[in-house]
């Protein structure tokens, strides 16, 4: 089971790099949430603003937009590499370190974060209940962030 959870998290990252956003969205449970807080100590999204706080219906809008040609901030599209390491597997919970390299329109940038995946076993397989990404510079000014981390 340890290998299964680790493989799930690695495959999830690969879907983002391959821009298979609909397949990525399908990994979320219906009540699943994608969350990038501004404060690594915040326990809930009600405590502070978030870079992303997207329950699945809002995440679905983000993904629908990523598939449109008139999303200006993705013209040209980003290319990313999600480097996932230091994977620790718990009981339907995975903690990892993440470095995302992004190249777009002549600029390279990097994000570094600790990530928590909370998973659930559903009829179709493992599903994400929560993906929480705590950036090391979560309070820093950011240029537009167009693709999920």
């Amino acid at each position, binding site marked *: 089971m340890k290998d299964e959870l680790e493989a799930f998290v690695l495959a999830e990252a690969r879907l983002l790099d391959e821009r298979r956003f609909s397949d990525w969205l399908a990994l979320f449970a219906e009540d699943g949430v994608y969350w*990038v807080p*501004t*404060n690594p100590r915040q326990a809930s*999204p*009600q*405590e*502070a*603003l*978030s*870079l*992303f*706080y997207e*329950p699945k*219906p*809002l995440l*679905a*809008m*983000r993904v*629908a*937009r990523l598939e*449109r040609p*008139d*999303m*200006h*901030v993705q013209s040209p599209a980003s290319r990313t590499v999600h480097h996932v390491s230091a994977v620790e597997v718990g009981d339907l919970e995975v903690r990892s370190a993440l470095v995302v390299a992004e190249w777009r329109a002549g600029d390279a940038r990097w994000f570094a974060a600790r990530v928590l995946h909370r998973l659930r076993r559903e009829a179709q397989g493992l599903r994400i209940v929560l993906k929480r990404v705590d950036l090391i510079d979560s*309070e*820093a*000014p*950011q*240029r*537009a*962030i*167009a693709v999920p981390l």
Partner: protein
Amino acid sequence: MNVADLWRANSVHRAAYVDPGVFALEQERIFRRAWLYVGHESEVPQPGDYVLRRLGPDEVLLVRGEDRSLALLHNRCAHRGARIVAQPAGNTRQFRCPYHAWTYDLDGRLLGMPLPEGYAEKIELGLARVARVESYRGFVFGSHAAQGPGLAEFLGGLASAFDNMLDRAPAGTVSRFGGELRLEYRGNWKMFMENAVDLVHPNFVHRSSVEAARAQPQALAADAMTQQGAQMFLANGLRAPEWDKVPLHAYPGGHVYMGGFYRSGVIAPERADPAYERYRAQLVERHGAEKAAAVLAVDRFNNLVWPTVSVNSRFAALRVVQPLAADRTMVEVQCFRLEGAEAAMHDLTLQFVNLAASPASLVASDDLEIFERCQRGLQSAASDWIDVHRGALADRGQPDGSTLGSGTSELAIRHQFATWLQYMTR
């Protein structure tokens, strides 16, 4: 080039956006003179509380003194110039420089230093104070200029934006909560202020988020937070004739607001939701039915306090623009708790601000992209002049000294530049 030559009838020279010399002059003539937003009193409630902020070109400390008065001090030791405070906020009895331990009280007066006998006379240098600090009903502004109009006079017709936010709080006060979102773009600061009241761009710039929301109609039936977000995305899809009904009000001093948003159902209309109904009942209790209805009927979206603040009273949020260079700008996004309202209302504020103003927002991210494209484009000398006269013939002067235009007019840009020119040429 003379700065007065950067503006001619209804058009602006591209140097106003790209020239570092113009930016340096703006720092001196605008950002060392105008009232600039620095923080809210609720951020420093107790004696000794401080927050570290920017005030134009300088880093300053907003401090609550022993006598509860507010001081605005430069964060720079009077001795060798070291930055004294490096934490964004805290509480202290005194400020002590990490370099040679010069120590100051909460008013910036020098308390002591090592080796005073090494000086021929008694040293009384303190931390430099910002010339003026004033609070408008809790919203604190500073000005580097010793002379000039007071804060209330400076805010003029836009003081009402803060009044309306306070009127919307059942307890009559607001307080900062939720930390901050910070955005950055490689473009000029004026672009943000111009775009915030440009009602022709949403249908083009935000088309992809409008269509994405239309493709997910079930979101409108989801929880209140999701519903509110979907409505906000959809609202950008209105066409020009509908935006024309959203009037722009331009006040002396470069301030502008756009009204008519909620009345015409443009954005996030009031919802039939139990938490909202309880909130409305609280406001009726505070104000009486007639005034409560009037307070909630104030349907402005962005209220711009020139040069750098955008106030959203309805969603209790501020955006504060921090110019960093001719081609680099930071925007700080902050929100407020309407005191006395229940937690569900604060949750809606937070999520509205996340979805509308985060650098990852489906809406704001495309605005940032457009600012960067404008900045790149304006580097080119293909043509020096940018025309902003759309709608000029329809500007209508009002008895209170303001000017009224339609939502699709470039009135706001012309109006901001009129004030810009006044500051830059004197």
